[in-house]
């Protein structure tokens, strides 16, 4: 049955003029982007965007005193350099005259030494009075660093030493780049230190090349995302279209009368669009791979996960919205937020905050592109999004089964929450309000996480204040925890002390689950401390969560004190957050 519907929807979509136009447009945009993007990445590789200096091809004349070797090959690939092959003495003269902006002096048997993992040195001379010297220096320096890392990495791989330790790569004991500044000349020295390593056969050229490239490629990969996200976002809207057009044109009634479980109707629409997205992704990934714009077609996996995330969100919007007008606003806002979230996290990734950014599937795209992904990293970036998507898909089917979403009157979100709470009453026992609060406390942690990431990133963009974030998080958590108490209040006339108990139950539920999740992570990172952390957190943060929401519970039970007690609850939480921060610092 689903197969029939999917086939039908696909045929409808492919025959639809609107779709054809959108697809063609997309094709044009992407075809346009590929060359633009190509030159962009080139420019990146040549440092055109991320260096403050302007200028193009051959803008930086430099001198090299050396034979050609693997290092000079890399340098000469950089089109911004205009290379003069000269003797050291002659070079110094030219540097002084300002004819060249830097002089590179490479040891005679550099290549051989490097290949046998011995130390070798390279010197950069610059003229501080020549403004171009500064950019030439920074350019050359970054190439040298890349080259050095590549050499080290190659060495490590060949010796089968486990993954390189970050500190080892960035601060090998003998490597320091000095620039002693004289009147006329300044010298930078970047010895590529590879002492005491026995000779081994190696694929070292390739290694060096990779590492050097990766420095720029993290930014390059970032652009690949832009290109590949385009079809995702465009198609995401199509799912909404499929869902809402049935409501607007009143054709859905025929579908609802079909001898099919309602959720299957939703699934078939979801699968139709997913098929289209997969088709497009496959097309673009293969095309970009073919043109050498992406290194690993495996990136289709995290992109598919991103697509599922996107569709689960647009699907829910489509089910919830009454009409196009209704959905347009929600979609616009969601897309902007989602875009910020996805890009925000991958920006964090590129910026080096890999641990935080890892939960975004797009970070995995970058990681795969750079060939630096691990299975654990893959799991961390796939599982949260995937489970979040599944929850949303499940929610959509629950809503889709309700006839109110086709015929109206549409329930509000709070109606739905209260309806859910009503199901948790267990025949109206005396403890029912606390059970409701406890269960909502469990759920509140997930609501909080989503909103904390969402708004946390936005807040980070605008202010860099950690206080703002702590306040934001305290507010979000207290709001999420209070939902349970509000729902309990809907069904039971809570007195102040009952409200407090309900609030405490919600706080307890929240703290319990939070601690389990937290401990799970600690267990991963510092297994030795996990138990201690768990106990400490259970008592400290647990009691704070219980206290703050208990206070808010009083406010919810006694409506006239709602605002002051709510604020008080948030304040308690915020102050606790601050104290913890102080403790950490």
């Amino acid at each position, binding site marked *: 049955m689903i197969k029939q519907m999917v086939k*039908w929807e696909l045929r*409808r979509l492919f025959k639809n003029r609107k779709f054809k136009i959108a697809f063609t447009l997309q094709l044009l945009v992407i075809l346009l982007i590929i060359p633009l993007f190509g030159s962009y990445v080139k420019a990146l590789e040549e440092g055109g965007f991320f260096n403050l200096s302007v200028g193009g091809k051959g803008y930086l004349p430099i001198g090299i005193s050396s034979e050609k070797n693997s290092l000079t090959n890399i340098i000469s690939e950089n089109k911004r350099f205009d290379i003069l092959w000269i003797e050291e003495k002659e070079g110094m003269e030219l540097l002084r005259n300002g004819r060249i902006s830097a002089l590179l002096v490479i040891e005679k048997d550099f290549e051989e030494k490097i290949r046998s993992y011995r130390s070798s040195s390279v010197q950069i001379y610059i003229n501080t009075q020549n403004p171009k010297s500064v950019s030439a220096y920074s350019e050359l320096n970054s190439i040298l660093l890349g080259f050095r890392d590549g050499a080290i990495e190659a060495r490590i791989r060949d010796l089968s030493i486990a993954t390189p330790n970050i500190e080892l790569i960035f601060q090998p004991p003998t490597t320091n780049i000095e620039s002693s500044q004289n009147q006329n000349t300044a010298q930078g020295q970047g010895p590529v230190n590879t002492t005491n390593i026995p000779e081994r056969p190696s694929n070292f050229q390739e290694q060096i090349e990779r590492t050097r490239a990766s420095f720029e490629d993290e930014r390059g990969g970032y652009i690949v995302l832009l290109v590949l996200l385009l079809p995702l976002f465009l198609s995401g809207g199509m799912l909404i279209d499929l869902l809402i057009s049935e409501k607007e044109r*009143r*054709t859905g*009634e*025929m579908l609802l*009368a*079909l*001898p*099919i479980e309602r959720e299957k109707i939703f699934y078939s629409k979801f699968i139709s669009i997913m098929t289209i997205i997969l088709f497009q992704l496959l097309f673009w990934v293969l095309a970009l791979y073919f043109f050498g714009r992406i290194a690993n077609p495996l990136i289709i996996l995290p992109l598919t996960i991103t697509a599922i995330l996107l569709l689960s969100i647009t699907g829910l919007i489509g089910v919830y919205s009454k009409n196009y007008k209704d959905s347009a606003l929600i979609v616009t806002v969601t897309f902007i937020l989602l875009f910020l979230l996805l890009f925000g996290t991958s920006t964090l990734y590129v910026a080096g905050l890999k641990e935080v950014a890892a939960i975004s599937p797009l970070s995995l795209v970058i990681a795969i592109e750079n060939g630096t992904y691990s299975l654990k990293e893959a799991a961390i970036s796939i599982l949260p999004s995937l489970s979040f998507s599944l929850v949303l898909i499940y929610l959509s089917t629950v809503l889709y089964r309700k006839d109110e979403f086709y015929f109206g009157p549409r329930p509000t979100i709070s109606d739905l929450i209260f309806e859910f709470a009503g199901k948790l009453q267990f025949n109206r026992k005396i403890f029912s309000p606390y059970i409701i609060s406890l269960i909502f406390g469990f759920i509140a942690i997930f609501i909080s996480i989503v909103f904390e990431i969402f708004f946390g990133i936005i807040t980070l963009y605008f202010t860099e204040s950690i206080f703002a974030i702590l306040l934001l998080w305290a507010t979000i958590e207290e709001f999420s925890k209070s939902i349970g108490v509000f729902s309990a209040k809907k069904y039971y006339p809570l007195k102040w002390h009952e409200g407090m108990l309900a609030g405490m139950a919600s706080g307890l539920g929240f703290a319990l689950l939070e601690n389990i999740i937290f401990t799970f992570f600690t267990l991963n990172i510092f297994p030795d401390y996990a138990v201690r952390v768990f106990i400490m957190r259970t008592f400290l943060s647990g009691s704070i969560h219980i206290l703050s929401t208990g206070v808010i519970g009083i406010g919810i039970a006694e409506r006239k004190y709602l605002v002051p007690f709510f604020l008080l609850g948030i304040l308690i939480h915020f102050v606790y957050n601050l104290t913890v921060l102080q403790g950490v610092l």
Partner: protein
Amino acid sequence: MIEFLDVSKLFGDHKALDNATIRIEDGTTIGIVGPNGAGKTTLIRLLCGILNPTSGKIIIDGLDLQKHPTEIKKKIGYLPEEPNLYERPKAGELLEYFGLLYGVPRNKINQRVDELLNLVGLSDRKDWRVSSFSKGMRQRLAISRALIHDPKIIVFDEPTMGLDPLTSRKIREFITTLKKEKTIILCTHYMYEAEQLCDKIAIIDKGKIKAYDTVENLKSSYIKEKTFKIGLKGIKKEILDNISSDENLRIEENGDNYLIIKTKSYENLKNILKEEITYFEDLTPSLEEVFIKLVGKKDD
């Protein structure tokens, strides 16, 4: 057999159907009549499993609709009140698609589509896009869509609304041909349509079922007397006296050569007037009168 047991449906606080209980025997044609907003469509949507009842049970062929929706829905063909169809596909494609969704075997589907298009007089339009169809053609296509899986129960919600008289008549004739073997539920606010087509009629107002019976029973229980217009050769004093003396007969109007008389039975009248009658007309109010009596206002 279709049973509604104390079925209510609320939209927010508004009770669109209020404790409806109704039994529909297999093979009968049932009319659901009532003014706009009475709850006819709501009742029908509940029957088709499109809406879920707020309370009460709907049992069809012994199965609870809430518990076995897909099994029951296979037996029902539904023509919605607003029979909106997809515009882009061709008529044949549309029927084929719904046929497959309703589980018509793939090898029989083409034959079934042709058969139905023939039946509703659209065989020459099989390869036309739905968007090119007129309103009447759409309605006929929608009817054939509702019948594609040869359902046992057919539900029509206002099948002739907004159509020209000729098309309306064709559709009514078509429904008559279906009557023989199907259970038909026909929702309409044209009283004569219900009277003409249905075995039993449910009158519904403000969500409540006010009456549910055969046309004759409804008329006889709500209209105590019949009204006849009798043409006579000449109105003689003797005849008038005879009529007045019979307490079962009452003269409503006394014309030059005719009388309008109210009576419980025509037999009495025939015995008194015998050969004098030149002309006879039954002016007994139609179902419409019953409806107005029950609902208290004339529907437009």
